[in-house]
């Protein structure tokens, strides 16, 4: 069932990111019809001689709204501007029919450092639910605020927040030197589009960025004039390792949960099959046997099996092969039966749901009862990737002929779109959780 069509989609907010010349992504949030809890995020107090570098409340409100679970009050609706819990007059806030509010303050401490204090309050009972005092460098200031969003989200929903995470993606633009060719860039940014960092510029198409489980490295495919090659790039050092290249396809890398292996597609033995590439030895082990195309492997989170796309049954469908106690792959079991194109699976971290391309839309399937929910109704949606907390799925879609990124809550609420101003953006991959920066 397509929930979206029934929705009154309202553009709620248009955030333009202007980091000087770096301005990269715009984020458009569309409001879903789901139950979003009203919450007050009061502008944080500021003790500094110059204007604050950021307004934490604005970032927290945007994060929470993006989740589809919360509806932060508009600035004009706030009845007061308390910066401390002690200053809150609960009765006035109860009149706004909100259950919770966040208050806080920020101040510079020393060179390039800030302290942020905040409290999450239960308005109904007039009590504090969470309170933190955070010291952060200027560099990690936005990260620290996303972690405030994570703390608030977890305290109120019981689910770990994924606001302090990143996305990897590929951008495409006409080459300045030769307009007949494209320039491809592999980039990472915060999940809200800020802090874009280019990891690689290339004249060769870049496919399938895949995060290592520790979030330090990205594997990807470079489609060179001599065929596809897989690289692993370290995000911090920007050094890259080229994997052993086999004749034919070297595609669709996916990290094992322990970070020691990649599942990938090779066609060295004739037709595309799934192999496991051991990173310490450069040895590969074949795990599929079919005359069809076997591609796009992803590991089960417990590493006990691999889900992949195969057209062995005549059309592209998803299959699961499990490893027995000797590590041998079982005969693959078909997972999808509805529709004639089911491909490119992403699995939720709890192993319970699959997001994939279903007849050119994004769908999520419950792996236990196999129930299918189609989340999008736009044509040519591709490359879904689960947030590490399973709450949302980011994917690539088309807008006016350009590739843009969009995210949708895994239950179909709160679609948002990320789009860059020039060129195309595609192949999004959501990072794993990051360690707290404070």
């Amino acid at each position: 069932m397509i929930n979206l069509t029934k929705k009154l989609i309202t553009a709620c907010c248009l955030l333009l990111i202007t980091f000087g010349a770096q301005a990269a992504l715009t984020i458009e949030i569309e409001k879903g019809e789901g139950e979003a809890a009203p919450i007050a995020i009061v502008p944080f107090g500021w003790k500094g001689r110059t204007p604050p570098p950021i307004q934490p409340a604005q970032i927290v409100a945007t994060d929470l709204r993006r989740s589809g679970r919360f509806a932060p009050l508009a600035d004009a609706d706030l009845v007061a501007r308390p910066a401390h819990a002690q200053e809150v007059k609960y009765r006035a806030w109860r009149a706004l029919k909100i259950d919770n509010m966040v208050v806080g303050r920020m101040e510079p401490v020393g060179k390039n450092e800030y302290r942020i204090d905040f409290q999450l309050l239960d308005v109904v009972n007039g009590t504090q639910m969470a309170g933190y005092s955070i010291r952060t460098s200027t560099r990690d200031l936005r990260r620290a605020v996303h972690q405030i969003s994570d703390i608030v989200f977890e305290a109120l929903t019981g689910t770990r927040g994924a606001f302090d995470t990143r996305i990897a993606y590929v951008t495409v633009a006409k080459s300045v030197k030769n307009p007949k060719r494209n320039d491809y860039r592999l980039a990472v940014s915060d999940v809200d589009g800020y802090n874009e960092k280019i990891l690689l510029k290339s004249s060769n198409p870049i496919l399938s960025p895949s995060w290592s489980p520790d979030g330090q490295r990205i594997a990807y495919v470079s489609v060179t004039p001599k065929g596809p090659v897989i690289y692993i790039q370290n995000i911090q050092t920007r050094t890259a390792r080229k994997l052993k290249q086999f004749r034919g396809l070297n595609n669709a890398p996916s990290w094992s949960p322990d970070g020691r292996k990649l599942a990938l597609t090779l066609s060295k033995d004739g037709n595309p099959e799934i192999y496991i590439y051991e990173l310490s030895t450069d040895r590969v082990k074949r795990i599929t046997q079919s005359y069809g195309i076997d591609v796009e492997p992803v590991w089960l989170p417990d590493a006990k099996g691999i889900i992949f796309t195969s057209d062995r049954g005549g059309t592209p469908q998803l299959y699961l092969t499990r490893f027995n106690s000797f590590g041998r792959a079982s005969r693959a079991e078909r997972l999808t039966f509805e529709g004639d194109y089911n491909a490119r699976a992403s699995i939720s971290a709890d192993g319970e749901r699959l997001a994939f391309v279903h007849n050119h839309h994004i769908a999520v399937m419950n792996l236990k009862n196999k129930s299918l929910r189609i989340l999008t109704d736009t044509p040519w949606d591709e490359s879904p990737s689960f947030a590490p907390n399973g709450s949302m799925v980011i994917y690539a879609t088309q807008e006016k002929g350009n590739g843009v990124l969009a995210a949708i809550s895994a239950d179909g609420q709160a679609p948002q779109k990320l789009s860059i101003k020039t060129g195309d953006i595609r192949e999004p991959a959501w990072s794993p959780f990051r360690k707290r920066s404070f």
Partner: protein
Amino acid sequence: MEKVVKWFVLTLAAVTLIACASGAKKDESAESAEQASSGEETGDTRYGVDDAGKIDAKTLLSDTTGPLSRRVFYFEFDRTDLSEEDRQALRAHAEFLAQNPDISVVIEGHADERGTREYNMALGERRAKAISQLLVLQGASKDQIQEISFGEERPVALGHDESAWKVNRRAELLYSGY
């Protein structure tokens, strides 16, 4: 159809001639190629024939209307089937390769933008292999052929409808230098 038959006969003739000769000298074939290309400008096609009476490979490859002139083959969505006409055109390529073992060809496989990028990489390879298998079956050597897939990454038309898709679902034969 008549044209195809005509060219096919011509290829056979050329192939027979080549079979009789024992390898052209490099500088001679360069000359012949020049002749052929000057012919293109006037709309005529001239064939370079060396002392041994051989029509050299470069001349054949430079001929823009000859039996080897068809280098792009199109496919249906998610398919690799080739039409009878395609097969005939490919037969000329196979025979040409068989008679010119020092010439090699790269077959590029492509897909339209529909479907996932990685599946399309595999599909492009499958299309390239459909052609190379046919060439090998008809006498070309595996060592002369290299298949490369570019999936949906190198479209020739940029539209988002069937008129663009149908020309993007293709395999291309690339003889180096032509």
